[in-house]
């Protein structure tokens, strides 16, 4: 389906456009003046205040007409110039974001992928097996009902403060310097585990329950009944049911991304993990609007890329989309 892909691409381009426009527009639509807010931190005399204000307005380009500002914003985006951070003065927004990005990705990607696979397997196993179902289902619901924020408090409390098994904050032991040796890497992994576990647990229940219900539905389907009537083993019927049920789960994964990214921010802040979540928190508490805007647009781009990857996987997994792309009528 060429149409399918074009539609997808148009959606992505438009979503990016909307994201950038929101990012540009929110600070300008909101009440209050960011520059004024920033300057209010330094107690300046009125003469030097106006001088400073004009200087800032000039550097940030806020003295230009709006359309010009908008175009400049796009230009800055494509040339990788998102401005300077106010919170960490000489640093560029882009370098701060790229510094935090690895931590966020190291948490998000394993948590998303593992919880998706483990959850799906668990759910499929639980479907129509009484004893497993009776344990997976209630636990799944409880996990699903847990607020991210609370889990991000309870997990470090139990594993760190009460049982002393894992460290509860920071990315690596204090006093260590980043290096490619075993001490550093093991410390990194050791500190990584709990925030990862939190994110993993939160998503697990949802996937398990979703898969369980879909597989039950598929097992009662006409195609499954037909296979049984043909004498197929239950194991084979289940395998096909699982494959069919995987498709909606996969699109569900794309839709859940935004929620997981939000959960990641909460988790990072609770664990003081120096990823984008922590950075955005610092940006907010320090009124660093350039940094805030920079992170927002990076997260939007990240979610769009992840969506695109899932789309590609979907095409690879679902033969119908491929067939129709070759022009056959599926």
């Amino acid at each position, binding site marked *: 389906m060429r149409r399918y892909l074009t539609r997808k691409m148009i959606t992505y381009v438009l979503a990016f456009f909307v994201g950038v426009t929101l990012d540009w527009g929110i600070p300008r639509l909101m009440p209050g003046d960011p520059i004024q807010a920033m300057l209010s931190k330094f107690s300046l005399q009125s003469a030097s205040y106006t001088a400073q204000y004009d200087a800032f307005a000039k550097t940030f380009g806020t003295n230009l007409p709006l359309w010009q500002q908008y175009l400049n914003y796009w230009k800055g985006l494509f040339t990788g110039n998102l401005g300077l951070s106010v919170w960490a003065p000489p640093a560029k927004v882009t370098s701060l974001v790229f510094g935090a990005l690895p931590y966020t990705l190291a948490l998000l990607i394993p948590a998303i992928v593992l919880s998706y696979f483990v959850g799906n397997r668990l759910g499929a196993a639980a479907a129509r097996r009484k004893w497993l179902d009776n344990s997976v289902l209630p636990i799944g619901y409880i996990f699903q009902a847990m607020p991210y924020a609370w889990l991000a408090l309870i997990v470090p409390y139990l594993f760190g403060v009460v049982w002393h098994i894992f460290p509860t904050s920071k990315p690596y032991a204090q006093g260590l310097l980043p290096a490619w040796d075993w001490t550093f890497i093991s410390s990194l992994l050791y500190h990584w585990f709990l925030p990862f576990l939190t994110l993993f647990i939160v998503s697990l229940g949802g996937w398990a329950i*979703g898969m369980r219900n879909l597989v039950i539905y598929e097992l009662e389907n006409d195609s499954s009944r037909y296979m049984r009537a043909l004498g197929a083993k239950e194991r084979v019927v289940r395998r096909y049911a699982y494959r069919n049920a995987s498709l909606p789960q996969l699109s569900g994964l794309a*839709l859940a991304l935004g929620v997981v990214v939000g959960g990641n921010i909460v988790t990072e802040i609770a664990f003081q993990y120096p990823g984008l979540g922590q950075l955005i928190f610092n940006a907010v508490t320090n009124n660093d609007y350039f940094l805030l805007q920079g992170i927002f647009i990076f997260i939007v781009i990240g979610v769009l890329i992840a969506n695109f990857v899932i789309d590609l996987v979907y095409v690879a997994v679902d033969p119908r989309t491929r067939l129709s792309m070759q022009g056959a009528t599926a």
Partner: protein
Amino acid sequence: MSDAVSEARHTPESPDPAAEALDSSLDLTTGQTTESVTVASSTVAAATQLVAPVAGVSVGQVSGVMLGRKRGDFVYYGLRNKKLIFGLGLELVFVLAALIGPIIAKYNPNALVGPGLTHPNGTYWLGTDNLGRDVFSQMVNGTRESYLVGALGAVSASVVGMALGFIAGWRGGILDEIIQMLTNILVMIPSLVLLIVIGAYLPSRSILFEGVFIGLTTWPWVARAVRAQTFSLRSREFVDIAKLSGKRPLSIIVKEIAPNMASYLFLVIILLFGSSMLLAASYDFLGIGPTNVMSLGTMMNNANQNAALFFHLWWWFIPPGVVLTGMVAALLVANVGLDEVFNPKLREQ
């Protein structure tokens, strides 16, 4: 609940073939509504369960069965469904706590009423926080705020989602394309990050703002589901008859189409209610929730900010989470029970 159900029964029934035909129409429907299956699997991810089966039911059940018997069926199965009874019962406990709690609780949640960081005791049932505020009073008050935000979020999401979903599904064509594009785009913009950016510029925020914001970012789930259902219902005979009889589109949607997805919509709204409460807790935890409101998320935020973990101040951050988990889990369980009541295929075999 019974309102939504009984409404569904007031539909002019089209003379439909019996059970066998119902089965095949089921498959047809699910074939058409794969998109809605997708949607629900992540509303709160559990939603998957409701869409695939219920989609079939709400469309399939249009078949001509006596009105009274159907309604009786739902009550019959509802009263015998352990999940529904358990979920509703548990939820009722929390609702009562939210209603009566503030009367029992002796203190104002924001008032400094005693020494700071007291362990739970006879006077301060759940101890006090660092400033000497009563944790129990904060908690029952927080339960109220959670329900309020959840309701606001669910209602605003349903209003917007249903309006756009009905329009897209009924009109089709270019309008449908535009609305679908809009929902697809909105789904990809992470709402928490958006609220952080907006919140950073707002000096103060209200509960109404938080609830409506949540609704305005979650309506795509409703819109997609409603659109898919409307799309498959609008070509059914009873809708044709209504059109021929000269009814106006609005009245057809309200009287013919909406009742047929009432049970299904009801389930989606319950899930939205739960997820709105969870989202609000995240916002409050980050300190971008309503200003000067003591909600469950705010309590967790206060505890986290004051290193409650490391001083073993468990009474400060464990109770709000337990309560919120219970509130949402009860909704989820009741939701599964309701699903089984509405959909014969899911009942215990």
